[in-house]
């Protein structure tokens, strides 16, 4: 009989007719899922502090991680700049990670090729290194118009301005050591 009663109490009409919600519009109508509701920020394993990658306001973000997956990104209310708020792009920034069209494996197009091909990451790195050395050699100048320049005109680079400072730093250092000078950034644009 206890079992029947428990079961009965889970039935909305029973609760409606016997409880404080005679119209069945509130407590009597609450479903199992509703009783179990919990926000996914509360069940996240950890919150990681980050910064929005779109414009340069620099909105601080809280990144919620569950089972090594990003489950939510929202504004960090502690930030004195954005005070927890985000624009539509910042609010959508989780989709940068989860976008169905994101390409996460190396793709290779051979000269005069008509389709992409797959390539191992390590192989690609070695191939790029080969090409860097060759292009550097091809474009090398010890002098130009009588002045010592010690550089290569064979390699150019253009970075976006969503690069980290640390990344820009290593890039400029490596390129300079290679003698590459046509090194540019979105910041020019």
């Amino acid at each position, binding site marked *: 009989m206890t079992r029947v009663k428990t079961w009965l109490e889970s039935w909305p009409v029973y609760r409606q007719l016997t409880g404080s919600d005679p119209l069945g519009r509130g407590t009597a109508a609450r479903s199992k899922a509703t009783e179990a509701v919990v926000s996914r920020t509360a069940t996240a394993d950890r919150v*990681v502090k980050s910064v929005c990658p*779109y414009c340069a306001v620099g909105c601080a973000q809280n990144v919620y991680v569950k089972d090594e997956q990003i489950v939510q990104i929202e504004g960090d*209310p502690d930030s004195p700049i954005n005070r927890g708020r985000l624009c539509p792009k910042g609010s959508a920034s989780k989709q*940068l990670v989860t976008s169905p069209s994101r390409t996460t494996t190396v793709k290779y197009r051979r000269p005069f090729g008509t389709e992409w091909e797959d390539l191992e990451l390590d192989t690609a790195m070695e191939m790029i290194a080969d*090409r860097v050395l060759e292009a550097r050699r091809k474009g090398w100048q010890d002098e130009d118009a009588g002045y010592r*320049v010690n550089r290569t*005109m064979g390699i150019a680079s253009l970075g976006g301005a969503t690069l980290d400072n640390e990344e820009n730093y290593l890039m400029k250092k490596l390129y300079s050591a290679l003698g590459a000078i046509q090194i540019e950034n*979105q910041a020019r644009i």
Partner: protein
Amino acid sequence: MPGLGASFGRGGATNFLEDLSNADCIVIEGSNMAECHPVGFQWVMEAKARGAKIIHIDPRFTRTSAVADLHVPLRIGTDIAFLGGLIRYVLDNDLYFRDYVVAYTNAAALVGEDFVDVEDLDGLFSGYDAENRMYDEDSWAYEPANPPESSADDPAEAAEQEQLDDAPAVRESDQAQAAGSGGPPIPSKPKRDETLQHPRSVFQVLKRHFARYTPEMVSEVCGIEPAVFEQVAKWVTSNSGRERTTAWVYSVGWTQHSVGAQYIRTASILQTLLGNIGRPGGGILALRGHASIQGSTDVPTLFNLLPGYLPMPHAMQHSTLDEYCADAAGKAGFWGNKRDYMVSLLKAWFGDAAQPENDFGFDWLPKINGDHSSYRTIADMIEGKVSGYFLVGENPTVGHPNGRMNRFGLANLDWLVVRDLQMIESATFWKEGPELETGEMSPDTIGTEVFFMPAATHVEKDGTFTQTQRLLQWRHKAVEPPNDARSDLWFFFHLGRILRERLKDSTDPRDQALLRMTWDYPLHGETRDPDADAVLREINGTGPDGQPLSSYMQMKDDGSTSGGCWIYTGVYADGVNQAARRKPGSEQGTVASEWGWAWPLNRRMLYNRASADPDGKPWSERKKYVWWDEAAGEWTGVDVPDFEKNKRPDYVPPEGARAQDALAGDDPFVMQGDGKAWLYAPAGLVDGPLPTHYEPVESVVENAFYGTQASPTVERIDGPWNRENPSRSEVFPFQVTTYRLTEHHTAGAMSRTLPYLSELQPEFFVEVSPELAALRGLTHNDYATLVSARSAIEAKVLVTERVRPIKLRDGRVVHQIGMPYHWSYGGLSTGDSANDLLGIALDANTHIQEDKVSTADIVPGRRPRGPELLEFVEAYRRRAGVASGRVGVNGRDPVEASAGEGSTQ
């Protein structure tokens, strides 16, 4: 940022976003802040709620205008006329902040006798070389305080003079951005007239220069009613002075012009005259458009800069470290320590291999000797001069003007590495580019080998961004990137590692830099990801004890200190990653000094010494910020003083003082050689010491001020793939401007690929007025075709009164077309690319393109397809008298191409 750099000494926003809430009036001009920086805009709304006037000056009525008190719909490309009018209004009505101007600016300096203004040369300054389209800046110099011969008494100065005399002429533009932190060097202190009455005083030169910028002239050139100009002038001047401050906000609506740096100069002059620099609620806030644009110039991947705005060594000037540092020797201001900064950088890069005997490895650095900027490089690619290209989070075939030219460049490479999150158009041009349809290229003619290397998102790596107010904020890695995706730090570290392994036995001198550079960073995890924290430590620099430096003042030129970017020194002060600090804003004041870390030395407002009067007292109680505490013998306030902490306000430099010691206690602009804000720029800009109104390169209007139509120094890149629309052409009768929408991000790789953003602005469209729609028979929400000498594109039409025709005094009507530029063929939300319509013409100061204003024709209906498109555009060129835009295969020269591989001709 030579506009700000030449005016104040540093190329960064002078104030910070939160400080906007202290303003009594905010002028947003050259920026659509509500749409492009919506979250930062909360501080404008906060100021408005407190009663501040909000003025939006913009050709279009935007979401920013919608909440402003006044919208000023000026004609595209006429901001210098408008701001010049305000400068004249301020000078004529004695509304400048006299005490501030006399003490803190170069108003009293005398300009040399050789200087001739544009008023007397019909739009040209003295020193113009018509053949090379550039200026010799010698005649713009100050009249020196001491006669030139006496400088020989000072050995340092004499040596420097010799260096400068010996050095061959180098186009200043290749170094102009060196003014990013440290004003341009000036040979000596000027003679001064504190009464400002001398006819050659900067103040009087300024008065004469802007005399013709009357309200009537402003009205005629900008196409606005005089009453509107008057209203802006009243609001701005009545909200400036001791008690009140006005802030100016700009963005790429200013920089992307052929005279962009001079736009910013004009605002700098105005804000300086009004006494609004270095004070709360004032300043000039440069809003950057990307997460780390500021960082990408501070720690630059730019051809003409080394970290910290040290110039890239120039082949004709800098064959040794001594020559490189010559312009700073004996100089006043913090730029006088250039050698300390440079030697520390070389130590950071080359470690123990950098020794005094080898000039600390200076000779290993490659040298520049011209314009090696991105657009020039594209032309070089088409000419087959470049073998390989790295695109690292950049999508130039959509985001740069003249997409077709960009695609031709990529099609002529040996190899291309694209690092991105999505398969962007710059990676797929060989497969899906529009030129395949027109027959100008096809996969079997394109030899470019393409590597697509997947990148990590912002939550998949550690590192810092430097946002719009010079603030570095550390991001912690949340998750590992999937599959082959890696951070750019990983990619470049491991590429460097492999290259060094390949060359490890080389004795070739050209390989020594690579082999000797420091390249040891801790590696983490399965993917061996380099430690970004260690890189940040290297950027910060270390002292002789190996401990992190806390200030660039500790740097030495003897090799005992290292530091990869001197202006970032202090970010790792006390061995703590200061950029990772996150003390809640609610537990701090508005300055919030313990959130992240700002360069320089965590100063949030630049030049804040100017918030106090020459005696060190706040100008007013209402606007107090930093002041001299006599009892404590130091500067104090709500922010870190942008001044030597213990330098008294009455300090007068002794004879022979150098660097910061040569600056007086009332010289707030500590990076300038004279400690002053520059109303007149005797050096640092290639197109003139004062801003002058020129029409854009492509304009439908004649320059009403001078016979010189457009900037005489504009840079062009000629070729069949970059034809220019003639000015005042009936064939291209309408002005076009490009811009962003809130719902998208630049070239679209980070928005057109996201479902939630794509659906909000799902199609490429252009905005036209009802009048233009009537004139051309355009139908709302139907297609129209836009044509230029570059290409033709189609877009949906949004007819709106927010875009308005400008009526000029002679009765002519200038129609303006608005064109957001986010689209291309890839992603979820697609359309033609606005940038395919635009040509490339550059501001010679910055090598930045003029894409905020161009001309075009617009006709109803969709554009022709395939080869017909080429003929359609070519017919326009013929009618306009423009040379042919026909190209050979892959954009190469037609003759060469006819003999080349894969030619069909």
